[in-house]
């Protein structure tokens, strides 16, 4: 019954008036930050972090965590209505969410992503509660070889996401890796591609890259199109947000798969919600009987990723709270809050600070419920924010992007980088190069190198280490299968197209194969 007592303890902490207030504040600010494209969670938490110095550590964490998962809820709004990811984790939601909005189903998309977010988060919290000790032990079995294999799998899987030309997708992965090489290499301190700029020793800022390629480029595109707000308020009324029976039926499994994928990747350092969302999208497209609907407003394409990124948001706390290993920069800030209050994170945190651990986790229920209640009636409000005339909204967003880029490293260099990457992103849009593989290559490239080289040192230069260690070998085999599968299915599509070109009679027969 100790488990129930812990849950009780957690709720008694989470349901105190102060904690509910700060939980609400965090979730609300998070949603707001998420809705505004360009202003990311890291920037928001970095800016609000000093405010929490005067709070109790539990309250401070509850508020910061609220911002963290709140942004992922809010981030889908901009993805769906503006084709502009509110946060990198919502980037993939653009692919099908925006077409849905163009078809007048924006209300349905917003409602359903909120449901998916809540479902994913709930799934993550249950796992977080039940399996923190188990998963902590299991994460310990992941050494450098396993991380390398896993990241290789991520990149291979990602290269199958890219829309249109596979060559363009692959070239963007490579460009991302090259940009990721900038800075000081972690095993021998050799400085690469920094051109004598001190600020580049730490490498290119992820925030600057993401904001430039996704944020600035989109704004330039939009300005060029001189598009007026094409959000039809009629589609967002309460009546219009009700999904059809068919859409409900289609959503169930993607949500469940997304939540599982998200929960898994959330626990691994270096992966997190963005990668979980990308992978979930790739898998949904793969398992779908009608993959051609993806990119044209398939509801599976928003349910899977939105469920995955929210589940990952929650399970990201598992390594952070159980091992004291932050999987991302945001989690590192969370750890910082603990340390500033003299609480040492580690396997003993749960036993030495039970009210903090259980209070925080139970506050996630409070926060997610607040978000669910906040988002569905407030869809109209968030949308109205996005119908602000673009000549006001866009300069404001650009300003927020600059503030966000500056505060992410406290350096003007980041603002210049946003400019450069904005130009790059704009050029990429014009020539039809996808942005997502670039981002993924950039994030995973340096991590892969780091783990690869560490695995090499640890195996004393034996390449076979990746195939001899059981977990690594299994992941490598899966990667091989994904690779073969994608080549094979591309071949099928090619044949099908050839057949279709040859005559209409073949289409019905071929469709069954896909």
């Amino acid at each position, binding site marked *: 019954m100790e488990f129930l007592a812990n849950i009780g303890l957690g709720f008694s902490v989470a349901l105190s008036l102060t904690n509910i207030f700060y939980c609400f504040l965090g979730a609300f600010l998070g949603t707001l930050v998420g809705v505004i494209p360009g202003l990311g969670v890291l920037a928001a938490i*970095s800016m609000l*972090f*000093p405010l929490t*110095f005067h709070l109790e550590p539990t309250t401070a964490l509850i508020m910061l965590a609220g911002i963290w998962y709140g942004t992922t809820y809010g981030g889908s709004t901009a993805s769906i209505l503006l084709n502009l990811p509110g946060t990198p984790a919502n980037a993939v939601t653009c692919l099908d969410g925006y077409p849905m909005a163009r078809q007048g189903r924006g209300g349905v998309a917003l409602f359903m992503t909120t449901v998916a977010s809540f479902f994913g988060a709930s799934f993550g919290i249950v796992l977080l509660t039940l399996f923190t000790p188990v998963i902590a032990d299991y994460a*310990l*079995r*992941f*050494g*450098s070889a396993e991380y390398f294999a896993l990241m290789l799998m991520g990149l291979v899987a990602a290269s199958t996401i890219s829309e249109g030309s596979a060559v363009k997708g692959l070239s963007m992965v490579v460009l991302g890796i090259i940009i990721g090489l900038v800075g*000081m290499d*972690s*095993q*021998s*301190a*050799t*400085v690469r591609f920094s051109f004598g700029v*001190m*600020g580049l*020793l*730490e490498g290119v800022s992820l925030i600057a890259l993401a904001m430039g390629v996704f944020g600035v480029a989109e704004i330039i595109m939009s300005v060029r199109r001189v598009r007026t707000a094409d959000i039809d308020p009629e589609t967002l009324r309460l009546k219009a947000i009700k999904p059809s029976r068919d859409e409900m039926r289609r959503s169930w499994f993607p949500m469940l798969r997304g939540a599982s994928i998200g929960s898994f990747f959330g626990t691994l*350092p270096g992966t997190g919600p963005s990668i979980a969302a990308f992978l979930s999208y790739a898998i949904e497209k793969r398992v779908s009987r009608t993959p051609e609907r993806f990119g044209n407003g398939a509801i599976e394409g928003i349910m899977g990723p939105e469920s995955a990124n929210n589940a990952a948001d929650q399970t990201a706390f598992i390594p952070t709270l159980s*091992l*004291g*290993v*932050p999987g991302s920069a945001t989690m*590192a*800030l969370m*750890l*910082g*809050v603990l*340390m*500033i209050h*003299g609480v*040492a*994170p*580690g*396997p*003993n*945190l749960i036993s*030495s600070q039970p009210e903090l651990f259980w209070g925080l986790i139970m506050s996630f229920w409070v926060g997610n419920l607040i978000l669910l209640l906040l988002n569905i009636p407030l869809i109209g409000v968030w949308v109205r924010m996005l119908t602000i005339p673009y000549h006001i909204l866009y300069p404001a967003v650009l300003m927020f992007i600059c503030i966000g880029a500056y505060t992410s*490293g*406290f*350096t003007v260099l980041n603002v210049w980088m946003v400019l450069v990457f904005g130009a790059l992103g704009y050029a990429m849009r014009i020539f039809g190069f996808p942005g997502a593989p670039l981002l993924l290559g950039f994030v995973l490239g340096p991590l892969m190198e*780091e783990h690869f080289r*560490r695995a090499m*040192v*640890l195996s*004393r230069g034996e390449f076979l280490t990746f195939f001899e260690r059981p977990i690594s070998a299994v992941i490598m085999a899966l990667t091989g299968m994904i690779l073969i599968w994608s080549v094979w299915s591309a071949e099928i599509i090619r044949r099908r197209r050839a057949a279709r070109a040859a005559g209409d009679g073949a289409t019905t027969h071929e469709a069954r194969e896909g």
Partner: protein
Amino acid sequence: MKTLLTAAAMALGLAQPLFAADYPAGPVTVVVPYSPSGNTDVFMRHLAPYLEKAWGQPVLIDNRPGGGSMVGTAQVAQARPDGQTLLVTTSAYVTAPAIQPDLPFDPREDLIPVANVGHVSYILVTNATSDFDTLDEFVAASKESPKFAATAGLGTTTHFAIEKFIADSGADVDVVHFKGGGPAVVSILSGETDIYGSSVSSAGENLTSGKIKALAVLGSARIDAQPDVPSTAELGYPDLEIKQWVGMFVPAGTDPAIVEKLNADVNAALRNEEFIAKVTPLDWTLNATTPEGFAEQVDSELDMWKALAESQGLSQ
């Protein structure tokens, strides 16, 4: 050289004549070359209110992370030497130059050491299931089958500490770099590596729960947090006096009277009972140094790490 000239030009031509009595004339900016919430940042944020009280001026903390602390350090090296811009950094100040030859400043010429404010001790730890219980057994075991040592990153104090230990003990150990102390401790927990020079705070919880065991404290004396763990000096390694310290610096050309006043004010703040109560749980040992004493320490450590980097083949 260029920086030196600039600093000299500023000292001669631009700086207003300042008297220590009037110091500080306005808000004081403390550059911390690490992210908010890191050890150094937390320490400085605790210290700042006491300096504000002493000076009657706001103390602003300016986080300038990057380049393993070298970005912010270089920035202060080029700041106006009027005492309004200070640097508070770690022993990376003396270790980084040993492996990064192309720094845009000279750590001996461009900045003046003011005070060593405090330090954190390192303990050598290993997994609880390792088949060695003492440092001697570890050295002996490594000669039979080579071992792995974890570090919190290339060029960090944990890296140099372990290299110095390897050089002094003759153990057969390969060094593996991790990004930060957290992952390094996890590699000890998972058994991926065999030894790590950890700060007490990052190993603490795992030590008390018995998942990892301590072999020795680096230095001449035992520490209060782990009174049963022998010091390396007791075990026959007299030269492993390696601490992660935090110190204050000002740009070269600053009026010596200001340096003296800063040193006195900082030392006074470090003796404040309220402040001590705040930082001792964070495993800090507070120091009281003179500018000259700290300058000597910086000078000799720069030499020591440079020599070690060359003999162990670490510098490029």
